[in-house]
């Protein structure tokens, strides 16, 4: 390596946005599926 790498903020921002998007997206996906299934089960039990 011959010197300090200049710039690269776009790539750094992409790394963090991708990570946050994936973690939040997965959380929402699992959470929504869990709540939907639990509500279906509760409705079934009530019936």
């Amino acid at each position, binding site marked *: *390596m011959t010197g*300090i*790498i*200049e*710039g*690269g*903020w776009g*790539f*750094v921002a*992409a*790394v*963090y946005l*991708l*990570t*946050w998007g*994936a*973690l*939040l997206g*997965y*959380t929402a996906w*699992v*959470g929504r*599926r*869990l709540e939907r*299934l*639990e509500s*279906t*089960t509760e409705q*079934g039990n009530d019936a």
Partner: protein
Amino acid sequence: MIGKLRRYGVGVVGFVGLAVAHYFGLFVAPGEAMMGDVGRILYIHPQTAQASMICFLAAFVCAVGSLWTGKSGWDDAMASFAEVGVLLGVLLLAQGCLWAKPTWGVYWVWSPRLITSAVMVLSFAGVLILRRLVEDPARRATWSAVAAIISAADVPIVWFSVKWWRDQHQMQSDVAKDFAQTFAWVAHTSWFAVMLLTGWLVWLRYRLARVERAHLETAADLPARAAPLNLDGGGEG
């Protein structure tokens, strides 16, 4: 409200911890000595890698437990660890590609570390695909446990690859040496937040797997329960 707080509280703490660490890592800490701002990936990339590998090792332990005991809890835990591990593994590879472009000039090189990491993620993705293809629960548990055990053999190879085959990929990050001590806490906070979030996501996914299984078992029981009723009810009317 209390139920939601109990379910999502740990996740919220994890996300807040991650947000604090990333704010300081991106906007307060100085750039890395040689990589400049690109080096800020060190506040998320090694943490993601370690969390992913811990998930795969835990999936290995659960796979052994599943084969040993035949209990569905181990099978669901194995699937949960594998799924979260694949999510983190895909993120790990994407982060690495995005970092490689400004640093190495290319998104991908056929480095042993990159190849073994990709094989690890693809192998466990294969375990998840296998689970979708096999309908019989007992056979699915056995086959996917065996596949997970075989896939996990790559995890130590990924870890040691940078020591065994030296190339352009740097050695494992060492917080004590690689970070200015004033900002080592940022890397530590990010590590704890990622581990907390990983554990919580696996727990959430495990709960979903248990509810799904109970749901499917109830659905499978219904015709069996209905059959004698129909027979008995044959003379009605």
